[in-house]
């Protein structure tokens, strides 16, 4: 569960990125987070992953209180939150298989478990036949599916996708969003930051709109509440 209570965040240069945000995303929910550039979407993601601390208010993510989390607890928080980025962030010199296995290795999973889990996740995102390829040999859509597989492999309870379709054509975007919806159907909480109005409306999930550091609308009917 993600819970923001009256959260403000100011940067040292004086910018007020969030000015009292309160929201709650329940376990297993699928929510879109929309809003213009600079509205505070990235700040919300960084607060959820523990990259930033709130200036005031409280942030609870999967049982961790982010306003008073200790530095050495942050890795354990991050194991509960898978993150997918617009620019994929894959390791080019590792194969598809190793990119996913790497995420399990670095949290200390044993070889036997890795060998059974990685093919399962690659199968889930439809990349099992490309496991020996390198990211450079994949299309944009495939690279994003690989990034999703990596985010998914440690079985996090939440996935945050930051503009996951920003670099993809409409057909691939639909594919990726469908995949995220399928993963959500399996029980993973999903928070997707996006600009794609068509997709948001097509999926008819909850839409939280943020504007100038404040939540301007929070609707359950897939209604996209601002114009670019």
């Amino acid at each position, binding site marked *: 569960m993600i819970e923001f209570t009256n959260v403000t965040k100011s940067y040292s240069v004086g910018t007020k990125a969030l000015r009292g945000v309160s929201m709650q995303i329940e376990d297993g929910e699928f929510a879109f987070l929309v809003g213009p550039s600079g509205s505070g979407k990235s700040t919300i993601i960084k607060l959820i*992953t523990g*990259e930033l601390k709130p200036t005031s208010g409280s942030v609870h993510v999967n049982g961790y209180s982010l306003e008073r989390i200790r530095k*050495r607890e942050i*890795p*354990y*928080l*991050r*194991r509960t939150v*898978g*993150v997918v980025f617009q620019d994929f*962030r894959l*390791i080019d*010199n590792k194969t598809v298989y190793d990119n996913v296995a*790497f*995420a399990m*290795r*670095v*949290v*200390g999973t*044993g*070889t036997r478990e890795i060998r059974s889990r990685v093919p399962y996740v690659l199968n889930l995102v439809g990349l099992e036949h490309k496991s020996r390829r390198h990211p450079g040999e994949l299309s944009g859509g495939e690279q994003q599916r690989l990034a999703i597989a*990596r*985010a998914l492999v*440690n079985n996090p309870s939440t996935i945050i996708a930051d503009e996951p379709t920003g670099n993809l054509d409409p057909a691939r975007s639909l594919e990726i969003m469908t995949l995220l919806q399928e993963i959500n159907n399996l029980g993973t909480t999903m928070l997707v930051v996006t600009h794609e109005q068509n997709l948001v409306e097509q999926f008819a999930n909850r839409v939280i709109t943020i504007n100038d550091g404040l939540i301007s609308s929070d609707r359950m009917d897939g209604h996209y509440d601002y114009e670019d």
Partner: protein
Amino acid sequence: MKINNLGYLLKEGIRGIFLHGFMSFAAVIVTVACLLIVGSFSILVYNVNIMVDELNQTSEVLAFVDDTLTYAEAQTIETKIRQIENVYEANLVSREQALKDFIADHEGEAAFAGLESDVLRHRVVVVLEDNTKMEETVGEIRLISGVEDISAAYELAEGFTTLQRVLQFVSIGVIIVLLLVSLLIISNTVKLAMYDRKDEIAIMKMVGATNGFIRLPFVVEGFTLGMVGAALAFGLEWLMYDLLVARIQAMDTLNLFNLVAFQELLLPMILTFCSAGLFVGIVGSWTSIRKFMNV
């Protein structure tokens, strides 16, 4: 940490060396260069110190025996002097021998032909272990009854002692500066290697790797590179030093330079090179990775 993971981390560390071949090569070359400079300077200082030591030993103390005493009585004085703590060597020279030596040391022996040995006194030639304590030891010799007079080149001995002190002081300073410069250069090289992999580190942080887990392969890498650098520098130092010694000995027909064989320095050199290699490798990678950990 599971054994399974430890194996993986070690393997990753070694793999990193080959994966980032050029940076690894640069780090090793810089380590070798720095260690060679520090090592060569240390050996130079060590040799100069020994040479000054040897020169210092040539400054003797002469204890003149009362001229009413016989040679046999003078021998007991020689024994007493030998028992003094700082005395390395004491040899009684009879007045007859002293005269012979004196004449032999001077040209125109004929001029001294009529000289009787009783114009001279028996004397004990004393070599000290530590010339910095010359004044003290001379005082002790003076207390022995039958010792009438003492000639000691305090100034010369003091000069050598000062020279050695200055040399030690300067060399420790230079070695510290060289080590610091080496550490700085090596840690910068490691930093560049880290920069090369900042994306990989960011991904590790993102999926929830602990700092220890991220660090270990880099530290293994730093350790391995440091050791390889130390081993290469050690081999090169040995080779260069042996060549230099052979070259100097071939030219130095007067035996002016008495250089220490590298074999004599083997253990301290191995220890110094290995610990310096380890230190710069591990500290270099540990400190430079910190910058990339704050993600």
